[in-house]
């Protein structure tokens, strides 16, 4: 399989999705009862797909490695979900959301997919409200919105700083309803370790029961991978500890093309790291940039005084502060897209203006917002000549109502009071735009194997806008995949149940057992984390926020070296037939060690800068990312050939008929 057919429907962009739904094959309700679908992952994409497919009548088997489907990492999304509802009457539309998303992705996404995403976005909000998702409301009882980075309208729906949680619990409860009727069979604490292909079609998986260690065979007519992103290849990221690439990588090794692995989102507002023991990084929602102002000292001597704990942020007078985002990007200010904000923070810190002991932090300051809100509140209360202290108190109350849980989270981690002292933040790995290649139907290059949500590459190009991950996960799972999968399954109405007693299942199970045995029997001297941390350091130093040819070539060599050492010297305690968290980690890190190399290789070959991928060799005189549309207006889709060093790249050219390609500007 070398030819990629994206199956984008003909016709004007606004009509493509409707036309496609009318043209594709449909499975009649009675026949759906004889068709089985496996869904791996229970986050927004997997949860919503499982529920919707079961409601339609398919027999669904859903797998998650957590102890409950409600715990998938979508739950940690804080700020919100975009939808082109135009409730705020600020001129929002499907086209504007489409345009913002393509531009925000630095013109590296497929137009037709993004348009469809924008088109179904409004339905998502309707669906979630109908499920009882408690979005934030105004006093009139109608839904409230806020703004996110890279756009000029308010289209983000939210539930305090816990939007992902509320949306996921909506999908989880829709699943629970169908688990109750038996249409979904739920497998908690199970990890997919291989994809099984029979006669060229994805027909099942090999999974390990993480409690007993039992290796299980599961068959179905189609397999949906909704397994999230691979940010944990960096060891430190905002992903959950268990988030991993294994399911997607195993599909890749069986023939699914892996697209744009180097497109990674480094989120600008995370709590800076504090020491070598650190196990993960914590995000502070982008919504904070609605009201927080980002700054560093103007003078280096002040920065040094702050770094050495000789000065406090609040003692530095206004005129000695550099609100560098407002200075560099007056139109968007603190709400520039994430890639731009992250690079700007790195630029200031690299120049020596960082504000903590490590020099890797900038301030996110709410003092202005607190006084502004306090004054508004004082006006509402008709207070005569309120004191500054009173205004501040009122303002802190308003800020608490908006962001209370985020401020509390910050305080618990850092032991600093963000109402009184500006937060310290620094960029961290957050999301991966790359993933499995999918066509317009969300099918990978393996027939019958689908990828949804963050696991696929389809909608965000080289940079994702805030509040768009939740939108994409639910769009794929509720409104796209349940229709498009019918086109494939329509051929299977007479197939009957897929047997797990076949040579293909035998072989896949044998491979999995051998992999696990070799890890357990290796009896080396170093822990899995030892290798994971080393991989993460190479990735962050050389394949992180800024990349260059020399560093990437070194990274590829170093990752190979770490991988070789891993197989020689890793120690995994215990046995295969028990609850063994180290073994589960080992299988995941083994796959990260292969992905890491492909990631660096992809970054090396793309000599342009675009979105989150910043090649130092390709920048404008002002230090902005410089795209090269003539040579790089394509997605890089990698085919596995046995070793990452020999992976073969296939291009899918990106054509833009409805949006003019422009150098991105947020000035």
């Amino acid at each position, binding site marked *: 399989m070398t030819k990629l057919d994206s199956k984008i429907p003909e016709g004007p962009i606004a009509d493509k999705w409707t036309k496609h739904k009318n043209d594709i094959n449909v499975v009649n309700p009675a026949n759906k009862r004889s068709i089985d679908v496996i869904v791996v992952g229970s986050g927004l994409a997997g949860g919503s797909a499982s529920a919707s497919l079961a409601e339609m009548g398919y027999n669904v088997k859903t797998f998650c490695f957590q102890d409950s489907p409600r715990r998938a990492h979508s*739950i940690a999304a804080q700020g919100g979900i975009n939808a082109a509802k135009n409730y705020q009457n600020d001129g929002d539309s499907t086209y504007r959301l489409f345009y913002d998303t393509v531009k925000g992705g630095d013109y590296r996404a497929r137009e037709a997919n993004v348009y469809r995403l924008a088109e179904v976005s409004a339905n998502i909000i309707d669906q979630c409200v109908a499920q009882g998702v408690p979005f934030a409301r105004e006093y009139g009882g109608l839904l409230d919105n806020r703004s996110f980075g890279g756009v000029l309208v308010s289209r983000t729906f939210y539930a305090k700083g816990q939007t992902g949680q509320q949306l996921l619990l909506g999908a989880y409860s829709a699943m629970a309803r169908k688990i109750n009727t038996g249409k979904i069979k739920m497998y908690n604490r199970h990890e997919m370790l291989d994809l099984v292909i029979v006669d060229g079609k994805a027909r099942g998986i090999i999974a390990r029961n993480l409690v007993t260690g039992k290796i299980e065979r599961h068959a179905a007519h189609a397999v949906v991978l909704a397994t999230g992103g691979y940010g944990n290849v960096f060891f430190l990221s905002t992903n959950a500890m268990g988030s991993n690439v294994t399911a997607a990588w195993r599909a890749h090794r069986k023939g699914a093309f892996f697209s744009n692995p180097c497109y990674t989102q480094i989120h600008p507002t995370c709590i800076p790291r504090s020491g070598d023991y650190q196990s993960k990084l914590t995000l502070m929602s982008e919504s904070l940039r609605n009201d927080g102002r980002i700054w560093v000292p103007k003078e280096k001597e002040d920065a040094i005084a702050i770094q050495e704990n000789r000065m406090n942020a609040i003692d530095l007078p206004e005129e000695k502060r550099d609100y560098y985002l407002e200075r560099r990007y007056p139109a968007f200010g603190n709400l520039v897209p994430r890639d731009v904000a992250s690079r700007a923070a790195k630029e200031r810190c690299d120049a020596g203006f960082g504000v903590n002991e490590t020099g890797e932090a900038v301030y996110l300051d709410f003092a202005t917002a607190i006084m502004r809100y306090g004054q508004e509140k004082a006006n509402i209360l008709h207070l005569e000549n309120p004191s500054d202290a009173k205004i501040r108190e009122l303002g802190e109350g308003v800020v608490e109502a908006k962001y209370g849980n985020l401020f509390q989270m910050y305080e618990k981690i850092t032991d600093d009071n963000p109402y009184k002292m500006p937060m310290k933040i620094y960029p961290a790995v957050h999301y991966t735009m790359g993933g499995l290649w999918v066509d317009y139907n969300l099918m990978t290059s393996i027939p019958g194997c689908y990828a949804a949500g963050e696991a696929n590459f389809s909608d965000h190009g080289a940079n994702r806008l805030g509040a768009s991950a939740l939108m994409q996960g639910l769009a794929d799972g509720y409104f796209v995949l349940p229709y498009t999968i019918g086109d494939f399954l329509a051929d299977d109405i007479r197939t009957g149940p897929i047997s797990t007693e076949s040579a293909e299942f035998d072989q896949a199970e044998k491979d999995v057992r051998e992999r696990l045995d070799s890890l357990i029997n290796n009896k080396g001297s170093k822990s899995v984390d030892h290798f994971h941390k080393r991989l993460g350091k190479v990735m962050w130093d050389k394949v992180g926020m800024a990349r260059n040819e020399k560093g990437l070539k070194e990274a590829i060599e170093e990752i190979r070296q770490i991988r070789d050492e891993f197989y020689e010297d890793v120690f995994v305690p215990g046995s295969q037939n028990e609850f063994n968290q180290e073994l589960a980690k080992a299988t995941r890190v083994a796959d990260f060690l292969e992905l890491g190399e492909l990631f660096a290789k992809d970054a090396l070959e793309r000599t342009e800068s675009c979105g989150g991928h910043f090649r130092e060799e390709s920048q404008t005189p002002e230090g902005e990312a410089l795209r090269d549309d003539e040579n790089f207006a394509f997605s890089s889709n990698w085919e596995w050939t046995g070793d990452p060093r020999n992976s073969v790249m296939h291009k899918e050219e990106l054509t833009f008929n409805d949006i003019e390609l422009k150098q991105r500007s947020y000035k």
Partner: protein
Amino acid sequence: MNLTLKIWRQQDANSKGAMHTYEVSDISEHMSFLEMLDVLNEGLVAKGESPVAFDHDCREGICGMCSLYINGEPHGPDRAITTCQLHMRKFKDGETIHIEPWRAKAFPVIKDLTVDRSSFDRIIQAGGYVSVNTSGNTQDANAIPIPKADADNAFDAATCIGCGACVAACKNASAMLFVSAKVSQLALLPQGQVERKDRVMNMVDQMDKEGFGNCTNTGACSIECPKEISLDNIARMNREFLIASVLPE
């Protein structure tokens, strides 16, 4: 900091468990509690011993996976947080810390500090939802205005992360706070009205079947709850249950 840890070790559900003693040294006060356990486990693995099994995932207080009973309190001595948000600055150098799994009949131990909370999932499956299929034709999200106070109260109840601390804190191992949070969320919203009575009856029925205890209003659940779910929800569920019992559909 140097600490003595007394940790419950149990190979699997059928084995007998016991408290084991471990020493850890050079612990930074900025570490999270789970990072301290990572250090312990790294040391155990280096010695070829079996690391302590404990559940954890997001490590930012929202997934509800972490679940340790620390010095007699679920999620440890601090308030309104999960174990993964607990930091070592809450402990003193030289202190002895007791770490146990959630203890409840309805949460059987899987290994060491890991327990099986699928009973919570089954309670939600019994009725913790609005029966609405996916459809591009549900009515517009703004068609039914919802008073802000109702929406906010529903949200506060909906923030439950399903960790089980309420059960672990309760001397009766009651799940009333967990169940009432979901019942309240949907009872407060117009979308939840149609199934209101069946929901509370079915969820309470399942709760009883799972072997959770009764509520005697001590309030320990709410104090230990990382999301500070209010006892008012239990009162609301009792009302809902009473109404549904005497005035069934």
